[in-house]
C-alpha cells in the first residue's frame, strides 16, 4: 500500500513536467520541422494511453490497434479528400476509373457525420467483436493473434480495393477542414496545441478509469479472472469495455494522424504498425499512462533520428528494444524509475500479465 500511494506523486510530477515540456519548452526551442514530428508522436501517445488501459490494466494485448487507428484515419481522410477534391471525384477514383462516388463515401461530405462516425464506428466494432470473443473466454495469446489477423485483413482489403480506398498509396493531398486550411504552418501550430489538449483529456479519462472501482475490478480480472467471475461479475463485459475505450483512443489517434500528417496509407493499419504501437507503451511502461506518452515521444524521436541517418540500424534497434524491454524491463522506463526510487521498499516486479 505504501508503494501505491507513493507512486501517485511521481506520476503527477511526470504529468506536470510533460505539460511544461510540450506547452513551453518544445514550442520555444524547436523549429516547425521538429514540432510537426512531435505532433506525429503525440498521435501515437494518444493510442498508447489506450494500450496502457487495455494491456497494462485489462491484461488484453491487442496486436490490431492499427485496425482502429486505420478506421479512424480513413474516415477522416474520406472527409478531407472530399473537401479537397469537391465537386469532382477524388483523384485516385478517377485514375482507377471509378465513375460515381460509392454510397458509403457520400455521408462524409459532412464534418459532423464524419466526427460522429469516428467516435462510434470503431468503438462499436470493437465492443461487438471483443464482447463476443471474451464471452467465449478466448483471451491472452489467441486474442492477440485474432486481432493481428483482423488488422491484416483490413490491410489486404484496403490495398485490394484501389478504386475505393486509394490502394497501397492510401489517401493523401488534403487541403482544408471545414473551409480552414490545414497545410499552412500556422494551422500546424494550432493543431499541435489542439492535440496536446486532446492528449491530456485522454490521459485524464484514462487516469479516472484506473482510479475508479472499475479500474480495481479490471486489475483483479487481469490477475485472476476466474475469481472475479466466481464473485458474480460479468468479466467479459468489463474487458470488452476497456478494449472499446482503447479502440476509441486509437481511432481518435488515427483521425488526428490524417489531419496532422496529411495522409493515411495501409501501412499504418498493418501488422507492423500495430506492433510498433505496442513498443511505445512497452518502453514507457505498460502500467503508466504518463510513461506511455514519454515512450511514444522517445521511440518516435529515435525512429526519426535513427532512420534518417542510419536506416539499416533502425530495425535492429527496434528489434533489440523489444527483446531487452520484455526480458529485462517488463514495466518499462516508468517501472525502472519507480524501482530505483523504492528499491528498499519493494521488489514488486511487474506481475504476470496472464
Amino acid at each position, binding site marked *: 500500500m505504501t508503494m501505491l500511494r507513493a507512486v501517485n506523486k511521481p506520476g503527477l510530477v511526470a504529468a506536470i513536467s510533460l505539460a511544461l515540456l510540450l506547452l513551453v519548452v518544445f514550442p520555444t526551442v524547436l523549429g516547425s520541422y521538429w514540432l510537426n514530428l512531435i505532433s506525429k508522436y503525440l498521435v501515437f501517445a494518444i493510442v498508447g494511453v489506450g494500450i496502457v488501459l487495455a494491456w497494462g490494466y485489462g491484461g488484453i494485448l491487442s496486436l490490431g490497434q492499427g485496425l482502429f487507428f486505420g478506421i479512424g484515419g480513413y474516415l477522416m481522410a474520406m472527409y478531407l479528400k472530399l473537401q479537397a477534391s469537391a465537386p469532382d471525384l477524388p483523384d485516385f477514383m478517377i485514375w482507377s476509373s471509378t465513375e460515381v462516388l460509392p454510397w458509403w463515401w457520400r455521408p462524409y461530405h459532412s464534418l459532423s457525420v464524419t466526427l460522429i462516425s469516428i467516435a462510434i464506428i470503431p468503438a462499436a466494432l470493437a465492443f461487438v467483436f471483443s464482447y463476443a470473443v471474451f464471452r467465449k473466454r478466448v483471451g491472452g495469446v489467441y486474442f492477440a493473434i485474432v486481432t493481428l489477423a483482423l488488422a491484416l485483413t483490413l490491410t489486404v482489403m484496403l490495398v485490394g480495393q484501389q478504386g475505393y480506398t486509394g490502394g497501397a498509396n492510401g489517401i493523401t493531398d488534403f487541403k482544408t477542414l471545414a473551409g480552414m486550411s490545414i497545410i499552412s504552418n500556422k494551422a500546424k501550430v494550432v493543431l499541435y496545441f489542439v492535440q496536446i489538449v486532446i492528449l491530456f483529456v485522454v490521459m485524464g479519462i484514462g487516469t479516472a478509469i484506473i482510479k475508479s472501482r472499475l479500474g480495481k475490478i479490471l486489475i483483479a480480472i487481469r490477475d485472476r479472472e476466474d475469481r472475479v467471475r466466481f464473485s458474480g461479475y460479468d468479466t467479459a463485459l468489463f474487458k470488452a469495455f476497456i478494449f472499446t475505450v482503447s479502440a476509441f483512443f486509437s481511432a481518435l489517434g488515427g483521425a488526428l494522424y490524417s489531419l496532422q500528417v496529411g495522409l493515411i496509407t495501409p501501412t499504418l493499419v498493418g501488422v507492423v504498425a500495430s506492433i510498433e504501437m505496442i513498443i511505445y507503451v512497452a518502453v514507457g511502461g505498460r502500467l503508466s499512462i504518463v510513461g506511455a506518452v514519454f515512450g511514444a515521444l522517445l521511440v518516435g524521436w529515435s525512429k526519426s533520428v535513427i532512420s534518417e541517418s542510419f536506416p539499416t540500424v533502425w530495425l535492429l534497434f527496434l528489434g533489440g528494444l523489444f*527483446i531487452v524491454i520484455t526480458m529485462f524491463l517488463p514495466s518499462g522506463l516508468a517501472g525502472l524509475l519507480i524501482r530505483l526510487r523504492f528499491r528498499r521498499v519493494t521488489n514488486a516486479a511487474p506481475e504476470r500479465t496472464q
Partner: protein
Amino acid sequence: MSFDVFVMQAFSGISLFTILVLMALGLAIIFGLMGVINMAHGEIMALGAYVTYLTASVFEKYLPSLMGIYVFFALAFAFLATFAFGWLLERSFIRFLYNRPLDTLLATWGLSLVLQQTYRSVFGAQEVSVSMTSWLDGAWEPVSGIQLPLNRLFIVGLTIVVSVVLYLALYRTRWGLNVRAVTQNRAMSGAAGINTNRVDAMTFAVGSGLAGIAGSVFTMIGSTNPLTGQLYIVDSFIVVVFGGVQTLLGTFLSALVLSQAQTMLEFTLSGSMARVCILLLVVAVLYFRPNGLFSSKVRQ
C-alpha cells in the same frame, strides 16, 4: 469444368495443402505442443531458405557435377542450421520467458525484426532465387492436357516423408514419449526423472529444424527476400490455431480445409478477396470453436 481443369485444380489444392502442412508442422510443435509463441518462426524458415541458396551457390561454383543432388544436401544443411539456431535460441532466450506468453510474443517479434535486418545486410534487399535442379524442372504429363509440375510433386512426396518421420519420432521413440510427457505435465515429468530442460531445448530445436526444411523447400517454388518469413508466419499461425493446438492431426486437417477453401475461392474470387474471406472464416470458426476446429475436449 472439364476433366483436366478439375484434375489440375485438385492438384493445385493438394500442392497447397502439402505446402501449408510443411509450413505449419514446425509451429505445431513449438506453439501447439510447447505453447511457445514464436513470432520469429517465419524468419527461421527464411534462414532455411537462405542456407539452401548458399548451398546451391557453393555447389554451382565448386561441385557442378553434383548439382543434380544438391537438393538433398541443401535440405540437410537447412535442417542442421535451423536446428542449431533453434537450440541456441531456446537456451539463451526463450526459456526465460516460459511463463509469460505475451512477453514471449513481443520478444520474438523483436527477434524477427533483428533477423530480417540481418538478412538484408548479408544477402541484400533483393530477392534471391535458386537455380532449379534439372530433373525437377518440367511437368509430368500422365494424360495429354494434364500437367503436374515436378517440383510440386517432389514437395508432396517430401511432405509425406517428413510427416511419417515426425509421427514415428513422436509416437515410437523414447524422445517422443518424453516430449509428450513434458508438454502434458511438466512438473510430473520432472519428478519422474525426465530432464525437462533438455527436452524443451530439443523440442524447440526440432520445431525450428522443420521450419528450416519448409524454408528450403519453398526455394523451389519462389524466391527469397528478407521479408519472406512474414509471408509464411501468418498462414502458419492460422493453420495451427484453426486446427486446434495440441493436436498434430488437427494441423493436417486444418491445412487440408484451408488449402481447398483457398484454391476454390481463388477460382471464383480475386486473390486478395479470397484471402480476406479465409481470414474472416478463421475468425468466425474460432468464435464457435475457440480451441480450434479439431481439438478434443479438455478441462481447463
